[in-house]
């Protein structure tokens, strides 16, 4: 418990960074974790170099899912879309700084799943435009 609910995670849960929505945005995605009912939406605005300029999230769920979203959004400002697509499970675990069992891992990784789905959706749209 001392690990899982360490001060930093509780702080992000109680005082989420980048909380809200962005309208307009360059991409937005939302999804849920049916196992525990965590919900998350992430909106992203890009700058001229297609790097993350602003990001916001809304959602509800357990401390792990919401703290993970808060930390992830904080960490991606300035990152390119390609860099976002390279993010993986270990990046989230590094941010959280904890070990997680398989059930809670799904809570922690919801933010990553939503962000990457948004980024890949952007790529899909661009790809169609090029055609």
């Amino acid at each position, binding site marked *: *418990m001392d690990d*899982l*609910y360490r001060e930093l995670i*509780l702080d992000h849960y*109680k005082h989420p960074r980048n909380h809200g929505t962005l309208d307009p945005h360059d991409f937005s995605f939302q999804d849920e974790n049916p*196992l*525990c*009912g*965590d*919900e998350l939406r992430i909106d992203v605005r890009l700058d001229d170099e297609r790097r993350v300029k602003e990001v916001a999230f809304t959602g*509800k*769920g*357990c*401390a*792990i899912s919401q703290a993970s979203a808060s930390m992830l959004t904080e960490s991606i400002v300035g990152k390119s879309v390609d860099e976002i697509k390279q993010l993986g499970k270990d990046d989230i675990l590094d941010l959280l700084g904890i070990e997680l069992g398989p059930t*809670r891992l799904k*809570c922690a990784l919801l933010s990553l799943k939503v962000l990457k789905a948004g980024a890949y959706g952007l790529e899909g749209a661009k790809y169609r435009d090029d055609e």
Partner: protein
Amino acid sequence: MTASTPYRADFPILDREVHPGVPLVYLDSAATSQKPSVVIDAMNDYYRRSNANVHRGIHQLAEEATALYEGARQKIARFIHAASTKEVIFTRNTTEAINLVAYSWGRVNIHAGDGIVLTEMEHHSNLVPWQMLAAERGAKIHIIPVTDGGELDLGPLDGILAQKPKLVCFTHMSNVLGTINPVRDIAAKAHAAGALVLVDGAQSVPHLPVDVQALGADFYAFSGHKMCGPTGIGVLWGRQSILEEMPPFLGGGDMIKRVYLREFKPNDLPHKFEAGTPAIAEAAGLGVAVDYLSGIGMAAVRAHEQQITAYALERLEEVPGLKVYGPPAEKKGGVAAFSLAEVHPHDIAQVLDRDGIALRAGHHCAMPLHDRYQLPATARASFYLYNTSEDVDKLVAGLYKVKKLFS
């Protein structure tokens, strides 16, 4: 008030530590019960001494295996007051039992426009098979709603039954609210309207005296693993006259009387519905679980759980910000689903796990019921014959820790 139990010592797992120095406090019996030594030993003995396939072979081991398997069926028939062992069909679990009815009875009897009545408090296993059938057949689903207090709102029932539905399906005891439904009354009304009745008994058979004939249901489904038995075995009870008319479910060995190259004759009940080598060790284990529960007496099991549940509700409601869902203790089984202010149930369960307390967090396979109360999830403590008031005290102490952490 305190509730102790002489049965705790029968369950070896309850002696283990979950984390170093932290003993187990098991409050998740609605998900699956723990198993007494006699059940574990019965399954081991079967594999050590008697392992053979059933209903074939005339050698000693095959005779012993068949006697164990069919003996379990007899014990279960007596336990639920079935009219005959022909009415006791082994399945994998409650879910498979309900699916058996949906596939076999449903595909013969449900046609476009026919009505199937469900309730808002059902487990997904008593919703999804009917949704699948209704979608395939163009049937109509009627819903009996749930009141704010967590009971079935039977007000709309007469109007629904006036539309002559074919089948009424509902749970005997809610796995979230603990509500014990008036099976006999609903069944009588349904029959008067010409409908058959299927009851999900997954939570009731382990915890209450159940007499399927007195209840007046036509189908009654339950699982072994929630009643001190192993996983992988469950039961469908059905009225013999209805089962006789139903086509087989799965095809294969054991469910046939005679096979030709292009056709077959199905076996007699109950084997008609039991294709392939069954879960023999599990049946033997379930038979012993039934002996174990019968030895204690289901009225005594129920009385112990009522005592624990009344104490638990009283203690839980002391915790500021805590809300328990469902009817008062006298109207419910040993289940307390609750929310604690803004703390997500997963966080509650995770923090309590550090104190060795096992409780369930989530939607408990009843998403529509949680939608009804606009909750994404709840935490759920559930009790069985091995729980004590000390377990409840540990739960409440743990919840105060949760509150402190998230305040």
